[in-house]
């Protein structure tokens, strides 16, 4: 379209130039002037069509909601207005000026003066004409008096007498008879035309002022009749020619020429106005329409980068940073596009950086969570107002609650009121509130749902500022404490065995020797006393030995030799030993896999448990002992149950410690040994009182190979 318009501009400019040239007086264009006008008008119409098409196009774009179309329309309007206003002003002024100046050419006084001059010339010429007619008539009378033959001879004489330049004599039919001229070697006189001949034959003098062919002067021509009476002719015609005085002729011709030019202008007045008006209008129209069409194109071009920017903006809004706008111009719009591109690029980089950062954060968080999840130490973080943020799985496991029950709430809302967890939480809160800026540490006993745990809690602020967040570290030291106690008891047992066992044999030997040596020397009564006493000593020493053996057994329990063990077979084997004393009912699951165990140690474990049950059933009316096995997830569970009095409540915490016993004769080492064996086998032991009365001890032993995982 721009080329079309440029072409139009070129053609229009050419046409206007031609028009202005044609308005000046140039012969070449004079002939083609109407064509030029039509061409110009055609150019105007073409431009008008172009503009209409552009407006139509623009309206459709606006209607279609194409971005930038409204801006284009506005720019076009502005540009068009900018072109229109000065154009119209110049046009109005020019038209007014031209029309006024054309009007000033015409003046009634000049016209009157010219007409007056013309009339003056005419009257002067008429005077000359009349004068010459008189002279001619005089000459004709003089000629008429002459004989016909002498007329031609007298002609020159008469001509000179009258002071006339040329005289000629014609026949009635216009035939030249003879002439006399003041010019030497003058040409033949002009022939009278029919009108003149006819007039003269009617006895009327004929006269005419004629302009010379080369327009250098004028002559007066007069023809008068020469009346003669002959046999041949009744009439001859005398023509005299006299030049008009040169200055008069020139002046008259000048006046006539001026008057003609003036009148021509007067006739052309409307035409001139139309010509200039039309030229100016066409010029204005072409210039204006070209400007408007150009404005449209320029506006479209101006708005084009904005359209591209809008496209880019929409793409960015969609999250697509890949659309890079081509930078086409070096002006501010180009700069804007460039800046936009840079911004888009930076956005893209920032987003990728943010994503990378986010990824690394996620990784770090996952790493941290992994670490926290695999810590056996419980970790809890709290806000400054002691609401819980993070609880790691270990902490939840230690506290025996789900993580969701613990996180996201103030710490005092842990557990219901008056539960162990709530008490613990209140204690923790108290510590944090008392020492908000320093770390603290303490040990608590915590009654978890399944077991009593000993916890070491350490609280510390996470940061060094005024209102720090906190971290609470929970260690379950139950096992550690238990191990310490076990170690202590092992040491005691070992010392006891060592310190007590050594003197026992001499005591026993001494008592036996006393009995042997003194029995014969004493009387019957004394001997009986001696025997009783020494028996007592020997029996008590034997009991002491048993006690010491038990202790040393506990202290020096051998490391288990793990091998595949059929638990059911072992149970049956052991149960046979008790058949005579107190039968054991067996409730064994079929098809159990072998467990990992040391047969000797497991046998001892079973003996200890059965012995415990047996001892508990001493005062029971219908004693009953049952051994049951079943497959559980962790391995194989073996339970020994009785219907005795069960374990006293106050002893539950210390059941597995040595010397925790309910029996008068018991060493209190039975369950301690059991637990030690279970721990050596990485098993689990659970002790509780059955609901219908009686105790129930369950041991779960892992399957072979299960612990390797």
């Amino acid at each position, binding site marked *: 379209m721009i080329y079309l318009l440029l072409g139009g501009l070129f053609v229009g400019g050419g046409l206007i130039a031609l028009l202005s040239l*044609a*308005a000046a*007086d140039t012969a070449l264009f*004079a*002939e*083609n*002037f*109407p064509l030029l*006008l039509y061409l110009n008008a055609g150019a105007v119409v073409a431009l008008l*069509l172009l503009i*209409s*098409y552009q407006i*139509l196009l623009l*309206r*459709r774009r606006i*209607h279609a909601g194409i971005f930038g179309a409204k801006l284009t329309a506005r720019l076009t309007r502005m540009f068009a207005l900018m072109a229109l206003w000065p154009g119209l002003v110049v046009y109005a002024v020019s038209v007014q000026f031209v029309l006024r100046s054309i009007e000033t050419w015409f003046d009634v006084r000049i016209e009157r003066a010219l007409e007056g001059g*013309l009339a003056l*010339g*005419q009257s002067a*010429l008429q005077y000359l004409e009349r004068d010459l007619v008189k002279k001619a008539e005089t000459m004709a009378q003089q000629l008429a008096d002459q004989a016909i033959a002498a007329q031609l001879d007298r002609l020159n004489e008469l001509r000179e007498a009258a002071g006339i330049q040329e005289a000629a004599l014609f026949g009635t039919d216009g035939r030249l008879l003879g002439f006399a001229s003041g010019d030497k070697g003058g040409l033949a006189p002009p022939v009278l035309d029919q*009108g003149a001949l006819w007039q003269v034959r009617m006895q009327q003098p004929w006269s*005419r*002022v*004629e*302009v010379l062919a080369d327009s250098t002067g004028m002559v007066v021509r007069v023809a008068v009749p020469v009346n003669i009476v002959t046999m041949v002719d009744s009439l001859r015609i005398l023509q005299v020619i006299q030049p008009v005085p040169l200055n008069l002729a020139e002046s*008259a*011709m000048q*006046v*006539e020429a001026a*008057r*003609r*030019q003036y*009148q*021509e202008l*007067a*006739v*052309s*007045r*409307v*035409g*001139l106005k*139309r*010509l200039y008006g*039309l030229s100016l209008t066409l010029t204005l129209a072409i210039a204006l329409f070209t400007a408007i069409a150009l404005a449209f194109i320029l506006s479209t071009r101006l708005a084009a980068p904005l359209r591209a920017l809008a496209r880019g903006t929409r793409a960015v809004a969609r999250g697509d940073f890949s659309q890079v706008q081509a930078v086409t111009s070096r002006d501010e719009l180009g700069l804007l596009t460039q800046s936009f591109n840079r911004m888009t690029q930076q956005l893209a980089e920032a987003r990728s950086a943010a994503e990378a950062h986010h990824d690394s954060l996620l990784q770090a968080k996952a790493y941290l969570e992994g670490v926290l999840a695999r810590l056996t130490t419980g970790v809890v973080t709290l806000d400054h107002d002691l609401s819980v943020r993070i609880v790691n799985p270990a902490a939840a496991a230690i506290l025996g609650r789900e993580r969701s029950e613990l996180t996201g709430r103030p710490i005092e809302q842990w557990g219901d009121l008056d539960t162990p967890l709530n008490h613990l939480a209140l204690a923790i809160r108290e510590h944090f509130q008392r020492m908000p800026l320093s770390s603290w540490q303490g040990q608590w006993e915590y009654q978890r749902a399944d077991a009593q745990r000993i916890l070491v809690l350490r609280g510390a602020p996470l940061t060094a500022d005024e209102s720090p967040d906190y971290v609470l570290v929970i260690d379950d030291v139950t096992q550690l404490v238990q191990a310490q106690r076990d170690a202590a008891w092992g040491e005691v047992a070992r010392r006891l065995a060592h310190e007590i066992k050594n003197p026992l044999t001499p005591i026993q030997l001494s008592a036996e020797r006393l009995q042997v040596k003194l029995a014969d020397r004493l009387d019957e009564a004394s001997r009986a006393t001696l025997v009783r006493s020494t028996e007592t000593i020997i029996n008590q020493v034997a009991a002491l030995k048993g006690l010491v053996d038990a202790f040393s057994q506990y202290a020096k329990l051998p490391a288990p030799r793990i091998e595949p063990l059929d638990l059911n077979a072992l149970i049956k084997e052991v149960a046979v030993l008790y058949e005579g004393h107190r039968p054991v009912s067996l409730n064994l699951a079929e098809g159990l896999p072998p467990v990992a165990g040391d047969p000797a140690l497991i046998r001892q474990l079973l003996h200890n448990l059965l012995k415990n049950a047996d001892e508990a059933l001493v005062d029971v009316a219908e004693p009953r002992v049952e051994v049951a096995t079943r497959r559980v997830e962790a391995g194989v569970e073996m339970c020994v149950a009785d219907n005795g009095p069960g374990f006293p409540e106050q002893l539950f915490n210390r059941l597995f410690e040595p010397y925790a016993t309910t029996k008068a004769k018991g060493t209190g080492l039975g369950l301690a040994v059991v637990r030690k064996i279970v721990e050596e086998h990485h098993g689990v032991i659970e002790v509780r009182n059955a609901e219908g009365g009686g105790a129930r001890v369950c041991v779960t032993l892992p399957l072979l190979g299960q612990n390797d995982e």
Partner: protein
Amino acid sequence: MHAWSRRRFVAVVLLGALTASLPTVTPAEGIALLRADLELHGEIWQLIGGFDIQLSSTLEDALHRGVQLTFVQVFKAQRPRSFWFAEDIAEVTRVIRLSYNALLKQYYATVSGHTTTHASLQELLEHAGDFNDWAVLHQSQVSRKHTYVLAVRMYLDTAQLPKPLQVNAVASQRWQLDSGWREWNFRP
């Protein structure tokens, strides 16, 4: 407006252009053919007869104010052919210039370089309209075997007017003077 399709736009424009181009000019009635015929003089066919010229008041006024009026007489001879376009035999043009001298109150007619002086407008127009034995064809150009179509035309050549008057001539009917083509058949 926006609903206009491009095709409809073009159609409307074309219709407008067509309407504008339709001839609205009716032939001026200032020049009428009185008589036209050919006469053989020696080897030359001469045109006899002439046009009757009636100037409009505008043109008469212009003439009296000193504007030179240029008329053009055109003679055309064609031999029609049944199977093809007519054959052009001859086309002869001559220019007649009419002028007026206000000082001498004389009218001048210049035909083919020869100027005649006339005392009245009527005389001038009679002279200007007459063919005056215009030699238009040579005997060799036509054959007795064929019938020819002859045509004459006389019109005011507005292109020879002064330019301001040309604008008037373009805009106004009063400046249009044209006999149009007047045809007759001729067999030598």
